[in-house]
């Protein structure tokens, strides 16, 4: 009981500390514009992983960044009389990083969505896009109508405008990259993809297996500024206005083949247009029961994936360790190679290869791929745990068994393995706890587990603190009892070992 209380206190202290840090990051003593002018540089955040045409490495000299947003950033900086400096940041966390003060503005295909309007201050837009629906060529069952997508699996990017549109009608399948949604559509894992036309033109349209179904709605890319820097936002608005008025914006967009009739309205953009784009201000929805249920479902997926993956890893790891120790030279070499390869490469890469790389020959569903991918990876670690366990069984135990007329195989089964596995239980339990947390990686292959659910909800309710704590609490509730069990078993085994050593 007291231990629980201490833990709870520790948690509270940690959270309060965190809140304090967030608060510190937010207080900026000088106004944004003055700060930037004093520094002589405006830092803008983006993710080069978004690729062409936004911000990406120049294929001719990868150190140099190019893209239409690089040109716009440079043009704005010139207007402000400073230099533009790019800061690389994971796309999904651009807004939180802006709030923390990692950079002054965000410009990276950030769509003006209701959820974001509540959190950041958007400048006037620098690009107009439309949400383009694509399906497999010849699939007549997909119509350019949101309501007609009910029950269909539609790929899109997490926390995008398209995702918000799809939620509630279609079944959104969320990706982190722009290539993967179209890959999965070609492979038949989804029915359609809804993404910005800029992305669709570059990553979807070139695939002959796909066709454009239609455009569902228009949207805007705009620069996000911290609400505490209104003067900076106003200065950038003026800068964009000037760039647009003298035709520079048009030339920049044309160079990236983004100019079309829709972009015309960027030039004569008015305050009324801005109000219409931002929509009526709405306060963020509180965390409600619906969210909690979604979280519980996410936790269920986490637990399911982890349990099934471990159920695969244990027998596979056992076979690998036996092959390595008793399988003869060829099997031992193969098992050794398996262990080294799986431990020597990132599990993220293994999941990618299994899900996307193998798709042309083996179309695994996301959940089976997650279980198999994690299971095969953890099997390598389990194999080493069992190998150590088997080698820790004293030679005298095997000799006694052989001397009683047992075959090597029987001695392994009846004498060595039971002892090795007993000694491995604490390690296996600890590995399972690690697996619970590693299972968050499977979101890259579209499985919405606990962590992914947290990031989605955090955008909804425009705060990371509530969802973050809920998410942490659920992980803790799953791993803490297991950790206790592991420690208790460890203590018990230690006691037994001491007793054995004493006689």
């Amino acid at each position, binding site marked *: 009981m007291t231990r629980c209380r201490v833990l709870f206190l520790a948690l509270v202290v940690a959270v309060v500390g965190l809140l304090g840090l967030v608060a510190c990051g937010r207080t900026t003593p000088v106004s944004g514009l003055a700060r930037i002018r004093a520094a002589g540089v405006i830092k803008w955040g983006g993710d080069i992983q978004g690729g062409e045409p936004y911000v990406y490495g120049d294929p001719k000299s990868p150190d140099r960044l190019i893209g239409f947003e690089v040109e716009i950033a440079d043009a704005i900086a010139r207007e402000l009389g400073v230099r533009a400096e790019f800061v690389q940041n994971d796309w999904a966390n651009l807004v939180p990083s802006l709030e923390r003060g990692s950079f002054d503005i965000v410009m990276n295909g950030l769509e003006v969505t209701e959820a974001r309007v509540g959190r950041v201050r958007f400048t006037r837009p620098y690009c107009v896009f439309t949400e383009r629906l694509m399906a497999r060529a010849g699939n007549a069952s997909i119509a350019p109508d949101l309501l007609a997508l009910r029950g269909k699996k539609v790929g899109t990017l997490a926390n995008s405008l398209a995702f918000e549109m799809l939620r509630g009608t279609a079944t959104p399948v969320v990706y982190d990259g722009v290539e993967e949604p179209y890959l999965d559509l070609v492979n038949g894992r989804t029915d359609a993809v809804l993404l910005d036309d800029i992305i669709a033109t570059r990553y979807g349209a070139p695939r002959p297996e796909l066709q454009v179904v239609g455009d569902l709605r228009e949207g805007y890319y705009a620069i996000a500024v911290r609400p505490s820097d209104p003067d900076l936002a106003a200065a950038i608005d003026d800068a964009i206005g000037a760039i647009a008025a003298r035709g520079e914006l048009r030339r920049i967009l044309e160079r990236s083949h983004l100019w079309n009739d829709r972009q015309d309205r960027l030039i004569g953009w008015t305050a009324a247009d801005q109000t219409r784009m931002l929509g009526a201000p709405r306060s963020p929805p509180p965390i409600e029961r619906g969210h909690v249920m979604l979280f519980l479902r996410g936790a269920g997926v986490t637990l399911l994936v982890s349990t099934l993956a471990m159920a695969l890893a244990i027998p596979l790891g056992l076979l690998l360790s036996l092959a390595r120790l008793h399988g003869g030279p060829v099997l031992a070499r193969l098992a050794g190679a398996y262990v080294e390869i799986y431990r020597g490469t990132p599990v993220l890469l293994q999941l990618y290869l299994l899900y996307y790389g193998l798709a042309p020959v083996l179309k695994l569903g996301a959940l089976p791929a997650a279980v198999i991918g994690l299971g095969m990876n953890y099997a390598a670690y389990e194999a080493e745990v069992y190998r150590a366990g088997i080698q820790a069984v004293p030679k005298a135990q095997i000799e*006694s068994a052989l001397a009683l007329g*047992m075959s090597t195989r029987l001695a392994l089964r009846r004498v060595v393995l039971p002892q090795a596995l007993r000694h491995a239980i604490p390690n296996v339990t600890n590995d399972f706890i690690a697996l619970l947390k590693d299972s968050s990686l499977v979101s890259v292959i579209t499985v919405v587990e606990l962590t992914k659910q947290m990031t989605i909800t955090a955008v909804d309710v425009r705060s990371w603190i509530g969802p973050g704590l809920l998410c942490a609490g659920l992980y803790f509730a799953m791993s803490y009892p297991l950790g206790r069990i592991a420690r208790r078993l460890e203590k018990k085994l230690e006691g037994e070992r001491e007793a054995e050593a004493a006689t």
Partner: protein
Amino acid sequence: MIVVDNVEKAFESRVVLDGVSVRFDRGKVSALVGPSGGGKSTLLRCINGLERFDAGRIEVDGLVLGPSKTDRPSRADRATLRAIRLKAGMVFQHYGLFSHMSALENVMEAPIHVRGVAPAVARERAKLLLAQVGLPHRRNAFPRELSGGEQQRVAIARALAMDPEALLLDEPTSALDPERKAEVVGVLRDLAKQGATMIIVTHEAAVVREIADHAICLRDGKVVAAGSPSEVL
């Protein structure tokens, strides 16, 4: 009857058995004595097939084991080895009880899984054997809960449970204090009286004199003396 004929064994370049020839007769208790490092344990392990040898032959009740270059036995050798091990039970200096099993389970294990004896039958037999070595009350204890002497007596019961033609004992008493020693020697004496065939490696003159019919002294891998216990000592 166990016949060891001109057996040679070297670990790397170190010769441990240098042309050893001995006979161990049925129904007799033989003591293997000699200085430390003389090759006693190695000889016992060769008879039981836990160690292969380089030259010569070993015959156990008509089963013949020849020299081998590798540690991995051939299929034919493996069958011979297992048959020999069923005829010659082994008891080790450090007992080697299965640490995850109770005393009773240790004794039942091999009859059930090697001989295919029904578990209920094996259990009754194991109880009898534990009673015979003076441990009827320690059946459910795990090895870590037993004293050294108790563990060694369980190990003897475990070997006896397979009804071997002969028992090979490698210093069965040397890890024990005098009191426990006496318990184990008592068990061995009883077995000898019942006419068991035993080969006992030991450093203790008392054990040789009290129990053995015959003694063999090994020094530097050679038989340097053989005869009645009093002659050899």
